[in-house]
């Protein structure tokens, strides 16, 4: 009897295998893309596959640190890290210089977002999106008087109803900005002070999360949390009671850009993919899906002024101080990790 059960199980397994196996002919050219979660219009991948015949293997990560440890042991063709991670990868010689002859659409990228500190010669990266960190809050529960500053995240009035980032650089970054220090400080005392500030905030937070915030804010499990403006758009779509502001103390300007790691196996495919994502049509579709500000000039020009002047879509970075992350010395990176474990102990 049991024998029959096993054979039935195996049969159903085989059927399911055939069912899905047929779409994956192993001879096809394969491209490994590693991106942030929820950070691409997946229809674009299908379109790219159709146009080029390249099979895209798409995987996601949820922090630059996560990406860093993953690419130590796994080979990807295109990765989309943030600024400071890119500068770290460049320092550690993990990226290939790009051949812009094969990426003609690079000329469509606004120069405001190129040659920044993390890749001063613009040799290794093609900007994908940019944005700022701010606070997403629920207008039903948060008093108007309490908004405007980072101190909302330390306000005991909202105990158990806010959240903090679960990633050392962003979390400590918020504390550093609140304290008025540089995001790229290498002063251990300043960092220690920032870590202590987060420890002091722990009783206020319901949790220390990354992407779970995306779900907990619209479902009103929490009423305020830091997040990127691009994701704020999605959350506000889901729950119109939510709103977004950039704290007056200043914030982090980030640029996420496409790069090709040294150990990539399909460089020409990677170039095609990057070029495809920079085309006006793809960049527009992706902007509509992802909600993050696009560095592509034609996208900006084609959009209504109503949108391009909305701080949610295209934040006005002249109104408050902004700073981009750069790579930190190994010793400070290690110190960040020690502080982080300390915070969570």
């Amino acid at each position, binding site marked *: *009897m*049991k*024998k*029959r*059960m*096993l054979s*039935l*199980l*195996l049969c*159903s*397994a*085989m059927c*399911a*295998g055939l*069912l*899905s*196996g047929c*779409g*994956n002919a192993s001879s096809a050219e*394969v491209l*490994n893309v*590693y991106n942030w*979660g*929820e950070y691409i219009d997946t229809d674009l991948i299908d379109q790219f596959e159709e146009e080029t015949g390249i099979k895209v*293997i*798409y*995987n*996601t990560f*949820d922090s630059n640190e996560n990406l860093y440890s993953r690419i130590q*042991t*796994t*080979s*990807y063709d295109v990765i989309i890290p943030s600024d400071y991670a890119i500068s770290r990868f460049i320092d550690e010689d993990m990226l290939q210089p790009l051949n812009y002859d094969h990426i003609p659409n690079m000329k469509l990228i606004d120069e405001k977002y190129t040659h920044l500190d993390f890749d001063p010669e613009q040799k290794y990266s093609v900007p994908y999106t940019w944005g700022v960190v701010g606070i997403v809050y629920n207008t039903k529960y948060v008093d108007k008087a309490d908004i405007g500053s980072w101190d909302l995240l330390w306000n005991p009035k909202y105990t158990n109803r806010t959240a903090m980032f679960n990633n050392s650089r962003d979390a400590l970054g918020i504390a550093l900005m609140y304290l008025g220090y540089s995001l790229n400080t290498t002063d251990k005392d300043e960092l220690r002070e920032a870590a202590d500030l987060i420890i002091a905030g722990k009783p206020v937070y319901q949790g220390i999360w*990354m*992407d*779970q915030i*995306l*779900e907990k804010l619209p*479902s009103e499990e929490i009423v305020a949390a830091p997040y990127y403006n691009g994701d704020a758009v999605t959350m506000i779509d889901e729950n119109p009671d939510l709103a977004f502001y950039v704290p007056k103390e200043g914030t982090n300007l980030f640029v996420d850009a496409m790069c090709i790691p040294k150990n990539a196996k399909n460089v020409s495919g990677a170039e095609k993919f990057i070029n495809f994502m920079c085309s006006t049509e793809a960049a527009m579709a992706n902007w509509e899906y992802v909600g993050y500000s696009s560095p592509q000039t034609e996208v900006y020009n084609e959009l209504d002024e109503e949108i391009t002047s909305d701080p949610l879509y295209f934040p006005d970075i002249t109104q408050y101080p902004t700073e981009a992350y750069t790579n930190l010395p190994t010793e400070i990176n290690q110190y960040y990790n020690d502080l982080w474990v300390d915070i969570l102990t």
Partner: protein
Amino acid sequence: MKKFFKNFYLLLIFLFLYAPIVVLMIFSFNDSKSRRLWNGFTTRWYVELFRDADILHSLYVTLLVAVAAAAIATVLGTIAAIGIHNMGRRAKAAYLTVNNIPMSSSDTIMGVTFMLLFAAIGLDKGYLTLILAHVTFCTPYVVLNVMPKLRQLDKNAYEAALDLGATPHQALHKVILPEIMPGIVTGAIMAFTMSIDDFVVSYFTAGTTSQPLSVVIYSMTRHRMTPKINAISTILFLIVLALLIVINVRQSRDEKRREAARRKGAMQP
């Protein structure tokens, strides 16, 4: 009264075990991405599921790895059990101690050790690493299920077969294997189930092109889960449930028939 309490207790435990499953099955029909707010009935996630090549591919990886790992583990484990059975006391104890390690050690630590090993020998993470790791934690279950059957085996049966002119090969096939078959089958089923259920070891050993369903689900739980995952789990669950019910009904029918036959036999003079 006492019986009522006993049944009530079992019922409560099963309620506990099945409550989240009911929740996730119901929300596979929810007409929104929310996993908590009901928004009306829909079957669209089931339709979309069959268009989602990534999820189907991860299901394929899961099943492929489970079938391969269970098959290898069954052969390897059965042969090993026969060998261990015939060993001296000390060698046997040593084997069984090491054999017990994967079952009684934590999967997190096991996953990490595999990751270090594969990195050290320069093996890229992929199907091969996944299957090797799964075989390693599945085989002990086969060994442990086959061993007791070997102990029950009449020691003289094998020798008798040889005396009667069977080759060792024939003796193994005709005498030993049929006797220990129930243990092999249980071991194989357990190996298959353990492989399907595994997440942690796969998380540390899967490559990018070979992510099983559990790893894909994990990356989704960290931001947003698509109800398509609920849909695919509901389908899998119902298939297994149906299979098990059929088996169970047949089994109890066979039992009754045998019982009836026995009674009939006893009545005859």
